[in-house]
């Protein structure tokens, strides 16, 4: 059942993505993307609920679950921010990322077919996992906003203003404001996740060094975002540099999962 729900969520996001792209191509607003993404989110919640019950803890125990949780978090922030700021095109850029994350999770061997029940879970551990993945959702959406800025910036610089994509993109200033807010939100959540990570009990006998490794990697990622926000606030950054750094740092930060 969980696999079916994940497949349905992936297909719904794919549908939202395709319909959104077609609308953009025709120079219209992609009003239906938010509906497809909301439906995809319902299926994601169904999947995560089933896995959570099977695991007995927050379902973040294999790479597949982490990817789906990340896709859910990305969808959640899109649904919170996109319609509120009337950035309908954010969905068109977000949906393909959700599809990619979930498609990878669906590959054979990525999701455990018979997830084992975890006993003796620790609340700090749960909080560490959940807030960290939520943070990655916000930071992923910041990267999506960064890509949108780079596309718009290029079109404005080169005076290519006739495409449907150009008409659908939100103003430069709104994109940069959204990007900044998402960075603050993501970094705040990541701070909580890392704090909880240090408070959770570490198993010294079974790969204790690996746990420390992933926390150190997360700390490096967090530090990178803190420096980025500090430079942006104190000195200022051009939109292009801020976007490039946000996208680049997010891609690099995915490396943390190699240590999990």
């Amino acid at each position, binding site marked *: 059942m969980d696999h079916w729900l994940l497949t349905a969520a992936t297909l719904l996001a794919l549908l939202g993505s395709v319909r959104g792209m077609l609308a953009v191509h025709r*120079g219209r607003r992609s009003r239906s993307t938010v509906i497809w993404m909301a439906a995809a989110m319902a299926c994601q919640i169904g999947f995560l609920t089933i896995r959570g019950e099977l695991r007995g803890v927050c379902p973040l125990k294999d790479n597949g679950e982490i990817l789906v949780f990340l896709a859910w978090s990305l969808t959640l922030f899109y649904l919170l921010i996109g319609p509120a700021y009337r950035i309908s095109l954010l969905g068109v850029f977000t949906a393909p990322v959700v599809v990619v994350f979930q498609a990878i999770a669906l590959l054979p061997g990525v999701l455990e077919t018979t997830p084992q029940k975890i006993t003796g879970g620790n609340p700090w551990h749960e909080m560490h996992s959940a807030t960290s993945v939520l943070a990655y959702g916000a930071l992923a959406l910041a990267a999506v906003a960064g890509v949108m800025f780079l596309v*718009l910036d290029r079109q*404005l*610089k080169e*005076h290519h*203003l*006739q495409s449907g994509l*150009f*008409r659908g993109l*939100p*103003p*430069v*200033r*709104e994109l*940069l404001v959204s990007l900044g807010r998402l960075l603050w939100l993501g970094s705040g959540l990541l701070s909580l996740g890392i704090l909880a990570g240090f408070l959770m009990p570490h198993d010294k006998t079974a790969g204790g060094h690996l746990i420390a490794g992933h926390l150190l990697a997360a700390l490096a990622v967090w530090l990178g975002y803190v420096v980025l926000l500090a430079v942006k606030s104190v*000195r*200022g*950054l*051009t*939109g*292009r*540099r801020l976007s490039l750094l946000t996208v680049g740092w997010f891609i690099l930060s995915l490396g943390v999962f190699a240590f999990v």
Partner: protein
Amino acid sequence: MELLCLGLNHRTAPVEVRERFAVGTKKLGATAHELVAMTGGSEALVISTCNRTEFYLVAPDARLACSRLETHLAEKTQLDAGVAAHFYRLERSAAARHLCRVVSGLDSMLLGETEIFGQVKQAYQAALEAGATAAVLNRLFQRAFGVGKKVRTETSIQQGSTSVGNVAVDLAEKIFGHLKDSEVMILGAGEMSRITAQSLVSRGARSIFVANRSFDRAQELAIEMGGCAVRFDEWQKVLERVDVVISSTGCPFPIVHPADVEQARHARKFRPLFFIDIAVPRDIDPAVGDIEEVYLYDIDTLEQLADQARGSRQLQIEECERIIDTELAKFNLLGTRPEGR
């Protein structure tokens, strides 16, 4: 009952003729009411804008009503008989089709313009309140508004800006969103700068700074715009706070160089900066456009964009006409059916 439209517009009559037939907005309802009695018809409506005056009538005999109306207009305006050549007379479905074209902006001087939709609505409201409309015109105008909306949403007839000023303002909105948080500086108090700045103010720009070689002229324009005059040798300081710069001086060489912008970048915290150069020769060194957060548009680029929009609107005409014909065929409106039906 037959529908009739008698009218003149920017294509059929020069302004000195059009102005004689113009009807003030406040008199639209009363004039429509007066026409009902005078032509022996049952319904009437008057549309009057700077580019057109049109009379819509519903009468048992359209030709008779038309001839009465023409006599009345000739008497009222005291113009010679030659003026009749400026009028077009459309009956039944041709009149309904014409109304749909007008509402959709296809008959406007500026193809696809949106103002006409509101003006026709206003004329209809006035006639309705004056009791000059009934079943035929009520149904016809409601349908025409529906068709107008459909044409505008299903085609790109109103997409893009067709004047240099509007292209510049649209671009400013694409960069800054709502202009209420944006500040504008004008370099050179020429007419084009004034028009463009006024458009920005009308869309909410927060404040305007005017720098001109003649400080008196700068003050004059600043007062007119509700802004602030700046001495010409101090514009670099103002650059640190503004978002949009409109330049149109008569200077034969560039006055804004990359170094001027570089100097202001740190104080601006690298915020986006939009330069509109409408001067010939250009006031802004093209190398300014290479600075990351700067968007530079000169007069040629703006005109090219306006041309592209006009061209793309022209391409939409056929599709718009198709929608109008399809929609009208669905309605089979009273007063628009061919004779004998």
